[in-house]
């Protein structure tokens, strides 16, 4: 979809740009026009090639073939400095900040104003920075060290870094992934303001609602190729999602009514203290039944992580009991808990779920390497492990070049699939999934939700912990809300509302809500 307009009105234009790594074309024959003074969204699944394209635009990669035009002129950038000089700057997904430096030092680094003999002149810089900060409503604490400021402020520092260098074309790589909802709203407002000042913005994201809110145009990229560009106001979220994934995506998980059986997990009066001896889970009791998904809703930091760690054996409980499939697993070692029938999709997949430098096949064997047929007499049977991994890669649609690839090289969604393959394949009595879709695109989310429901339909219990209410409401059969380590009440997913859950998440117990409802009804 190409439109005709004057080249000079393009901030950036890519013509037949291809970037290959060996045989693999991360970007294949890309043609793209970014108009001046607009927010142009770039939408694509994890690993679609968005970041590669942006690294070409910010001078970190050089294209294998094709041309890059900036403000209508053909350019050849060989370093980020070149991009800088052309007024292109990028806010990286993982902030590029020096934790030990102050905000000001971070902003000026590489473009420091100096007096004679290279002596820093931070006073001069401070004036310019504070002016920019005021103009664009980017509130910062100039003398605080970056390690002491909030993630939101760190991002504002990143933006100021670009503005300080007079950047006119700003690239945001998944800027909202780390922000809280209010910070996201703020960022959206700042982006709109910058565009009004005549700057051009490229927004890389896979969050459709953000695109709908701020972007003028949206280009969809899939497997390194451009699928098409559309005007955002003329297209729906559903259309965008379908273009991105290449098939129709359903936001709602199909599932039949649950047929719950006996309780597979019984938690009785459980209390857990963290390493600072603060009680994070307080006298909690609930059951997860076979054939149901129990969702645990709550704001981050209300004891959900500690609860999961206590069940999986990673953390000791201070009192109470945990029974899994009629076995008491309270304070048992992790392996014993696993063998008793627990599958665990941990919250932080890269830290707790996988060993990134090891191969996919080794990661798949992590729960079973010590017994037959993965090993015999302490010697690993790689032939069997690889064959088994190949089988699971196909069954779970893990996109990797081979079972011997380094797991760290996979995209986030595919890394999560490796964990799911490993955990689900053992058919555990209870599967715990802690924020299983965080940071993943709609296609991967849909897939993971389906797998969780499958597990339920096989007659096993699923405990889903999530900070996303949409996810909880979509997948769970019953919902328990945790607040400050306590159980606020359990509701049927089909008979509750976001409002009711919201009240409970804010600390109002369910019986209190019911009582006040009854009072209203009585009057």
């Amino acid at each position: 979809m190409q439109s005709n307009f004057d080249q000079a009105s393009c901030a950036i234009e890519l013509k037949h740009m291809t970037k290959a790594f060996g045989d693999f074309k991360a970007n294949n024959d890309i043609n793209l026009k970014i108009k001046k003074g607009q927010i142009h969204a770039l939408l694509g699944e994890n690993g679609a090639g968005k970041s590669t394209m942006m690294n070409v635009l910010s001078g970190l990669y050089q294209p294998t073939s094709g041309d890059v035009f900036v403000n209508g002129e053909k350019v050849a950038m060989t370093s980020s400095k070149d991009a800088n000089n052309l007024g292109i700057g990028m806010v990286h997904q993982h902030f590029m900040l020096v934790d030990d430096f102050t905000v000001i030092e971070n902003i000026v680094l590489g473009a420091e104003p100096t007096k004679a003999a290279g002596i820093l002149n931070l006073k001069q810089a401070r004036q310019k920075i504070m002016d920019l900060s005021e103009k664009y409503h980017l509130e910062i604490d100039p003398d605080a060290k970056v390690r002491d400021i909030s993630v939101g402020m760190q991002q504002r520092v990143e933006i100021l870094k670009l503005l300080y260098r007079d950047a006119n074309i700003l690239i945001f790589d998944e800027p909202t992934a780390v922000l809280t909802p209010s910070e996201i709203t703020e960022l959206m407002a700042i982006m709109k303001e910058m565009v009004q000042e005549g700057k051009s913005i490229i927004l890389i994201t896979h969050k459709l609602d953000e695109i709908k809110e701020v972007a003028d145009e949206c280009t969809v990229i899939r497997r390194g190729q451009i699928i098409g560009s559309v005007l955002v106001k003329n297209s729906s979220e559903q259309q965008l999602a379908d273009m991105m994934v290449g098939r129709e995506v359903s936001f709602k998980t199909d599932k039949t009514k649950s047929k719950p059986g006996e309780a597979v997990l019984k938690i009785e009066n459980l209390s857990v203290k963290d390493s600072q001896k603060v009680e994070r889970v307080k006298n909690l009791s609930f059951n997860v039944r076979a054939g149901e998904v129990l969702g645990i809703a709550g704001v981050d930091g209300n004891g959900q992580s500690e609860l999961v760690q206590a069940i999986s054996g990673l953390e000791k409980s201070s009192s109470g009991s945990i029974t899994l499939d009629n076995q008491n697993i309270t304070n048992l070692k992790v392996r014993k808990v696993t063998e008793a029938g627990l599958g665990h999709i941990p919250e932080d997949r890269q830290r707790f779920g996988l060993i990134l430098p090891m191969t996919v096949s080794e990661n798949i064997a992590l729960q079973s390497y010590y017994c037959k047929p993965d090993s015999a007499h302490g010697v690993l049977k790689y032939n069997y492990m690889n064959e088994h991994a190949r089988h699971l890669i196909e069954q779970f649609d893990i996109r990797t070049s081979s079972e011997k690839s380094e797991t760290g090289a996979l995209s986030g969604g595919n890394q999560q699939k490796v964990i799911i393959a490993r955990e689900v394949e053992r058919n555990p009595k209870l599967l715990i999934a802690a924020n299983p879709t965080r940071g993943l695109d709609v296609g991967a989310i849909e897939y993971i939700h389906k797998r969780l429901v499958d597990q339920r339909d096989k007659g096993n219990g699923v405990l889903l912990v999530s900070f996303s209410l949409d996810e909880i409401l979509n997948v769970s059969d019953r919902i328990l809300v945790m607040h400050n380590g306590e159980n606020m009440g359990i509701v049927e997913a089909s008979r509750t509302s976001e409002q009711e859950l919201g009240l409970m998440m804010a600390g109002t117990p369910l019986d209190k809500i019911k009582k006040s409802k009854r009072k209203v009804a009585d009057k």
Partner: protein
Amino acid sequence: MNTMTILMTIVSTTLIYASPLIFTSLGGTFSERGGIVNVGLEGIMVIGAFASTVFSISFNETFGAATPWLALIVGGICGLLFSIVHAVATVNLRANHIISGTVLNMLAPAAAVFLTKVIYDGKGQTPIIQQNMSTTDIPLLSKIPVIGDIFFSNTLVIGWIGILLAFASWWVLYKTRFGLRLRSVGENPEAADTLGISVYKMRYSAVLISGMLGGIGGAIMSQAITLNYNVSTIAGQGFMALAAMIFGKWNPIGAMFAALFFGFAQSLSIVGAYIPIISGWNDVVFKVAPYLITIVVLAFFIGKSTAPKADGETFIKSK
């Protein structure tokens, strides 16, 4: 000895033994602030000590009283040249910093002893140098009553230069563009790279500065303390300097004070016999003290003191 003389002796010997440590620990600070762990300081000191001794013996008639000062410069240059090995290995060839440093430490003493035998007819050590770096009174300052006597009389001038250099180093690291960039590649080289700073260039500077300062540190050892080069001229001072750097929290001024403390520990073997309470102790205690104190200090501080974030990490520029 009266209290005054004891005090004078302690201060003077402390500074003598601390001087090599001050220079070398400042070198270590520069290197590690730039993200390159330099355990090769010991080897670099050996090269500095050896080269300066050979220079002094060969040219003392030409340069006279200026010889020891020129010898320090020669030691610094040779240390710098030797440290190129470490820079190439760690920056370009992505070698493990500890391994590369260990290579320097194994290479240097062997090379120095071998060259000693070649140059001085098969002897295991060099002759004694003729023009050594001796203690003097610092003009004007030594005239100040009491303080002048304790601190500035009969003292080693290079030690005071080292103390001043620590403050200057702090200023360079924290107040100049060069320092900001050097520290940025030690904390987050990827971030520095995206801002157009050449990580390789900065890291080379860091290692070469440490080579030069380590070389000078080694040269002070032979020019002011042992007065010749033999295998035990440098016996752990490089590691003590590293310990001083950690104890000083990778801050030049902190490192300097830590070096003074270790210098005091080393001076105990000389002045311990004169300090009233401990004078009766066995000589061995004083000899062992500096090493023991180093270990104890490291055991207690190495966990609490935080290194630059990317210290010891290899930076690979993406293409």
